């Protein structure tokens, strides 16, 4: 049994109204195409031309449309060109000190051992597994501060499958001593995995799941925005959507990878989700897709929640149990997926500012810079700066958690909380200055007993917090931030005199 059989490509009828998106050149399948095969052929030709011209912008609109990059031969080149345009990695430069062995390598082997379950050829299977381990370890050793998570291997598998498609699907490894790596473009594959990891996956590769939870909360906030009714009935306020974590951490690779011959064309959907994610340069996309999946199935979910309300020990279990059961069946439904992707194409490309504000992401989140939904090119040095800052922030979160914020005084917790909005080197200054400001006003208040001043204090603190939490905080502002409370006090004090 080959993957061709497992993955069994069938040409479906696709929506002929391909996507147009603001900011991209519009792409339309010709209305004269009477069948989808012709449309596919036409799109293939167009993509080939664009690849020759390295027209990245138009390629993006191709990736967003139905069929995405159509086939894996084109797809791997498209992914490479797009990712190369998003980050320039120079392999002669050592961006940070390497390690010979990363702490998570044992876990990588455990998970690789369980990968590629659908491949029957044992030689090929073991070579694919070895390649998986090699690619992951290379990243971990090169960027030792990244932490491996179960699910990262699913994402790397998607890249491996794309790049080794013709070997796996058609040619196979003949004779026996053929090496898989000699038959695939290792350089491009390595580049894609590295670029994708740095640009899109940093939030998931911290030392704890805190930043992953932030992304889950975006799903809740998106639902609140799109369907307040479902949001309130579903009670998202109280429950983080932990049930979504497998899908989010793997960009649906965990749900859609083929594991047995009965799996129809789900891999095609999976590749298209990656096409769209990379084309939009957006980690918002998987979250928006998840939101649309939930909303598409909202009536069924609500029905099941009602029917099973007495079956579960608590509401938390009830939601997880019902959603998993409902989506379990639905996620195998190709037509549902086509529908959801089509809705997503017409949805906004990123979560709104309101949504992001509600979630309070860490300020170096991939959702705010390298995969924020706007095409942009980043230097590795910049990404490493983000990574360093995120790592520090994550450590602070962890410490706060372990030492228990609730036991601390509220003021201390507030100041510490404030620290998260600022780059770490300004933390002490900003904390001290804010405290000076508050103490000064309190002192003034004691002497004048003015109520308006008390209100001013509240206003000052709240506007300051708002300013600081604004994601596009610029460096000049930060430089002077320690001065601001004092300035504010002078301003505030004046009219009361």
């Amino acid at each position, binding site marked *: 049994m080959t993957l061709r059989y497992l993955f069994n490509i069938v040409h479906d009828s696709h929506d002929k109204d391909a996507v147009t998106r603001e900011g991209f050149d519009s792409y339309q399948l010709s209305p004269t195409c009477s069948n989808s095969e012709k449309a596919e052929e036409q799109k293939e030709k167009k993509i080939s031309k664009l690849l020759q011209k390295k027209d990245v912008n138009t390629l993006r609109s191709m990736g967003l449309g139905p069929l995405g990059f159509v086939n894996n031969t084109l797809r791997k080149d498209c992914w490479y060109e797009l990712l190369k345009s998003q980050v320039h990695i120079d392999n002669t430069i050592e961006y940070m000190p390497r390690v010979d062995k990363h702490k998570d390598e044992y876990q990588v082997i455990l998970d690789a051992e369980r990968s*590629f379950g659908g491949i029957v050829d044992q030689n090929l299977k073991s070579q694919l597994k070895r390649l998986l381990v090699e690619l992951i370890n290379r990243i971990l050793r090169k960027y030792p501060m990244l932490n491996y998570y*179960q699910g990262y291997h699913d994402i790397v598998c998607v890249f491996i499958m794309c790049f080794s498609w013709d070997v796996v699907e058609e040619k196979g490894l003949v004779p026996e001593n053929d090496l898989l790596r000699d038959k695939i473009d290792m350089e491009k594959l390595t580049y894609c995995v590295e670029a994708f990891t740095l640009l899109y996956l940093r939030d998931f590769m911290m030392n704890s799941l805190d930043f992953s939870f932030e992304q889950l909360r975006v799903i809740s906030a998106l639902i609140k925005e799109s369907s307040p009714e479902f949001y309130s009935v579903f009670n998202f306020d*109280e429950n983080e959507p*932990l049930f979504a974590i497998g899908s989010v951490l793997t960009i649906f690779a965990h749900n859609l990878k083929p594991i047995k011959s009965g799996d129809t064309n789900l891999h095609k959907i999976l590749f298209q989700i990656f096409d769209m994610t990379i084309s939009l340069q957006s980690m918002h996309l998987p979250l928006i897709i998840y939101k649309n999946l939930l909303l598409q199935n909202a009536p069924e979910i609500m029905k099941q929640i009602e029917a099973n309300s007495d*079956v*579960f020990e*608590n509401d938390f279990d009830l939601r*997880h149990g019902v959603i998993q*059961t409902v*989506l379990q069946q639905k996620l195998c439904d190709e037509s549902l997926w086509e529908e959801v992707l089509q809705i997503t194409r017409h949805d906004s490309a990123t979560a709104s500012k309101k949504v992001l504000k509600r979630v309070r992401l860490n300020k170096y989140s991939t959702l705010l810079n390298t995969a924020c939904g706007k095409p942009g090119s980043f230097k590795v040095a910049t990404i490493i700066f983000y990574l360093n800052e995120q790592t520090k922030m994550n450590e602070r979160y962890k410490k706060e958690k372990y030492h228990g914020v609730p036991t601390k005084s509220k003021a201390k917790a507030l100041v510490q909380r404030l620290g998260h909005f600022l780059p770490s080197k300004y933390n002490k200054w900003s904390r001290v200055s804010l405290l000076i400001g508050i103490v000064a006003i309190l002192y003034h208040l004691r002497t004048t007993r003015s109520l308006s001043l008390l209100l001013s204090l509240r206003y000052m603190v709240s506007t300051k917090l708002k300013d600081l939490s604004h994601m596009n905080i610029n460096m000049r502002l930060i430089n002077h931030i320690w001065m601001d409370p004092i300035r504010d006090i002078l301003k505030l004090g004046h009219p009361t005199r």
Partner: protein
Amino acid sequence: MSGLRTVSASSANGKSYDSIMKILLIGDSGVGKSCLLVRFVEDKFNPSFITTIGIDFKIKTVDINGKKVKLQLWDTAGQERFRTITTAYYRGAMGIILVYDVTDERTFTNIKQWFKTVNEHANDEAQLLLVGNKSDMDTRVVTADQGEALAKELGIPFIESSAKNDDNVNEIFFTLAKLIQEKIDSNKLVGVGNGKEGNISINSGSGNSSKSNCC
């Protein structure tokens, strides 16, 4: 959402059962938690079974002493970093299966750590069970006696199993369910479906529930 293609039964409407038991599987990564569950629920075995990410949920209804018992089975990710998530699901678990791999000493040693986590997060009345999986393997390094001794030390029952050969897999779940049923019958535990008012409540994890606030 994980392990999406392995559902056994959708939640039943109406009462097609006498009681419900929430059961959790925990243990190190790769010891075969998901394989045990899939063997029990679907009678299948696939050594390259997919990794569990976060939490997986399955249901199977069994017959215990003439009563229809709906087993709610929660399968957890073994990797340390998911511990914050998985402990949120300990709440209200009536049975917890601690699994190790008889071919991997480390997973056996870590059982004590898992036991500690259980004591921190689960209900005191929860019935525990120690399982040494992969008993079919020639590469065994942990003997049955060692397993037995540890179980005795922890004061919990012990079973060796093989998901691959289907040895003792049903026994795990039936033994546990019977022990839980005995506890329910002696009024130590209150079944989920039997009385909402009497829900067991333990210190909650991250998700707060409105139902289990009786104690």
